[in-house]
């Protein structure tokens, strides 16, 4: 028991509980302001968190190696099946076909892809044991590409944007074709710059429509994605479309000031200055930042997320084997990417994309997914000595 208490990653667990509590509070405030069905969402989120905790502890006490042996590959297959199913029979909401029955397969698939990758490169006696050269990279690329493409087809750019960094970190840590990856990353950065430059040139004031069309023909983005990039590049320009969301979000956050307007006193949501649904989801951070201000709100929240991510990564450092390390890094990076993209998009750092903020956004699938992931990482922490 003492060993258990010592090995349990208390920091990660406590920061997670703290974030869940904050999530319940901020959803209660936003819901009260919205009224109607929204008023009770915080309760259902707490209920979901309770279910998530059950998963968390079950996964934490089971040996993660057993779990991964059992479910890593079948789970991946299952995730692919769900992603195809959602494309065929899913429900459309907010411009994306993302819903299957009561959950979003793309959220669950994040966990399964990470598990599969960790299993592939971390398990002993597996195919790519030892040195993972270009062959390993190809295998990993194939593995990642299928779900990512399926998610992109929904379309859900945000999920892909957060999954890719997590997988990249895992590949780098696993030592899969390191040199090639670095080159690839550099190439990706160049490509991204080129795309940004092209969109900038196309949307710059004074560009003729013909020239714009000619440029955009070579840019691999859809029209709505182009408009988001455009908003990112020229936030002040288009006031009513996607730029509007950004402007409202930044204004809401900024108006909170150093100490905020007080819990339950956020004006943006009460005056309906923010889109109603988005404010409970993708823009929930705005509510928190407006009500609690910079110090108690933004900084405290960032510190908690930092604590969660770093303590999760700490598990990777002390993990007993490669699988555990990859899993911990993967989950830590996934959470971090969500935090960075979600908060970054509401202040114009990142193009606007639909993406939940872990523990705060109203999104049950993602909450359970993240808690399962953290439960597995806790298992890594608890079971680290056995095969030393």
């Amino acid at each position, binding site marked *: 028991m003492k060993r258990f208490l010592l090995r349990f990653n208390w920091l990660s667990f406590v920061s997670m509980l703290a974030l869940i509590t904050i999530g319940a509070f901020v959803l209660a405030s936003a819901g009260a302001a919205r009224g109607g069905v929204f008023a009770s969402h915080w309760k259902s989120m707490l209920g979901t968190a309770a279910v998530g905790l059950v998963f968390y502890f079950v996964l934490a006490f089971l040996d993660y190696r057993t779990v991964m042996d059992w479910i890593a590959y079948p789970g991946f297959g299952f995730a692919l099946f769900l992603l195809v199913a959602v494309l065929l029979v899913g429900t459309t909401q907010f411009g994306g076909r993302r819903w299957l029955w009561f959950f979003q397969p793309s959220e669950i698939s994040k966990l399964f892809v990470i598990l599969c990758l960790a299993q592939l490169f971390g398990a002993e006696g597996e195919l790519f044991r030892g040195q993972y050269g270009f062959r390993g990279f190809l295998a990993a690329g194939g593995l990642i590409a299928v779900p990512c493409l399926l998610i992109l087809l929904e379309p859900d750019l945000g999920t892909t944007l957060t999954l890719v960094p997590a997988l990249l970190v895992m590949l780098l840590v696993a030592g899969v074709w390191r040199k090639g990856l670095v080159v690839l990353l550099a190439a990706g950065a160049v490509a991204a710059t080129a795309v940004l430059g092209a969109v900038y040139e196309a949307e710059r004031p004074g560009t003729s429509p013909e020239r714009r069309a000619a440029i955009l023909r070579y840019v691999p983005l859809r029209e709505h994605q182009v408009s988001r990039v455009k908003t990112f590049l020229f936030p002040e320009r288009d006031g009513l479309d996607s730029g509007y969301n950004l402007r409202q979000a930044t204004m809401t956050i900024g108006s909170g000031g150093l100490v905020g307007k007080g819990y339950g006193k956020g004006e943006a949501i009460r005056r309906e200055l923010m889109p109603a649904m988005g404010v409970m989801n993708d823009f929930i951070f705005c509510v928190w930042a407006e009500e609690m201000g910079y110090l108690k709100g*933004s*900084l405290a929240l960032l510190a908690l997320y930092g604590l969660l991510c770093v303590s999760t990564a700490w598990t990777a450092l002390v993990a007993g084997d490669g699988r555990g390390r990859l899993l911990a890094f993967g989950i830590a990076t996934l959470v971090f990417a969500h935090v960075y993209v979600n908060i970054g998009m509401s202040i114009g750092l990142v193009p606007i994309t639909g993406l939940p903020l872990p523990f705060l956004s109203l999104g049950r699938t993602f909450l359970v997914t993240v808690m399962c992931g953290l439960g597995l990482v806790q298992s890594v922490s608890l079971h680290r000595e056995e095969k030393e």
Partner: protein
Amino acid sequence: MKNDTVIVRLVSFALVTVTFGIGLTVLAVRLKGEQVDRVAEHRQEMDSQSSRRVLTAGPRGAIYDRHGVALAVNRLSLCIELHPEAFRPTAKGQTTASNIAAALESLAAVIGRPPKTTPEALARHLKISLARPLKVWEELSEEELARFCEHAREHPGFVCVSEYERTYPQGSLAAHLIGRVGREEIRTVAGGPRMNYIEKDLKGREGLELQYDEYLRSMPGEDLLVVDARGFATRRETLKRASAGCDLRLTLDVRLQRLVEHELDGCVGACVAIDPRDGSVLASASAPTFDPNACVPVFPKKTFRKLSEDPRKPLLNRATAGQYAPGSTFKPVTALAGLRNGWNAATEHLCTGVYEYGDMRVRCARTWGHGELDLPHALRESCNPYFCNLGMKTGIAALKAAAEDFGLGRRTGIDFPTDAAGTVPDPEWKLAHCREPWYPGDLAQMAIGQGLLLVTPLQMARVVGAIGTGRLATPRLNAAMPAQDRPLPFAKAALGSVREGMRMVVDGGTGRKAGEGVDACVIGKTGTAEVGAGANRHKNTWFLAYATPNPTSAETTPLALAMVIEHGESGGGTTAPKVAAVLRGFYNREEATE
């Protein structure tokens, strides 16, 4: 992986942690920029986005006569307003406009007449003032209101409100005096808070409504509309309630005004009656007239065209803006000018029935002449040769000075927008305006109130009042305005003999009909001005009266009254009886109590 050294593990942990740290620091710095450095900017932006200020109008002040009889008041007009926020699209394919159109159609069936809004006006309203209600039905009748209330529950978003509308309870009475109103955006105070919307308020366009517009107009209030992201109102607050404008009490006496208008009915002409002691205008009428209620809330184009194209000019306020030759009513002024310049009232002059100067001949009313006349008798008979002679002896400068002492040739100073100055000609004036030299005949004509001389009925009422009291009062309509007058620079004896002449006018002279049966002491002067040329030649007939009440009179107010009737026969025959009727109505007890 198993072979990874501790160093590799540590490095990868450090790299990942540092990446997290950098990312979170970037977020923290950017958030500080928005939340700490630019907080004022963001707060201002939020305030401006979420609220709209509206300048609202209140009720306009009322206008009463001297006894408190309402002449212009506000009535409540029932309207149905539409609140756009109740028609937000809820399902796919709906728009606010389509929701409203459907609701309007349904409500139109209930009320029984189509809304006054066109789809274009509706679209415009939704575009520029989405946060504000829109009036869709105005002037709801009781029955329509009942029908609306019965079905109001099925039509959320429609509210019945009452709006102030100007109304004139006395109808056409004193229409020219009161004037009319239009609607105009409230004028904002410079330097005040910026308003997003400005309501329209009643604005005086003519008459007293224009003269006292600032006074009657309401003090605007201020509403705050809190709006959501789409611009729909979510809350309304009244920051400042609009307060009613001040009420205006006039010097006008509705009873006398009614008597005067009754006498003018059917004629073309005007009549002004003032209290000579303080210049209070007791009645001021112009005929023909119109009903100002016809131009509320807007002057219908058809009505306006009909009125403005009428050859009898019903829109013209003849009492203050009608300029007429005074005819013989000017003779008292000529007489006083002569008396001030050495003319002797008692000296008798011979009237042969015609006055000749060079090749000019001025005929007297009596073909064979009046024989020997002194001044009072000359006034009594309104003898043209006597006054031509007097005028020629007095000279234009003295005559003009006397006319100007009576306030002729310039504005009376009445608190009213139209206040014509008239004309008192002299050689320079004639040269400048007619490009003709001054002939002696012009002076002779002027002495008997003809030729280039022009006066308004208001000016003449003032003249006769001044002769009666010896002081020239400034006419006024607002009872709260202090009375102003100045003494007439004429000798008492001179005024006395002119009054004597004017007494004789009524007492068996040309204006004997003006005093018939009047329970007051009346002096006066007739006037018959021949104007126009050729087929249009006609007579404008005048009567000036100064009446002082007897102890038995119903009223204790003296009256100075000037009445002119266009296309009359003679001052004594056409106008004097009408004046008598007015005076009888005003002073005689039995008629006053009728």
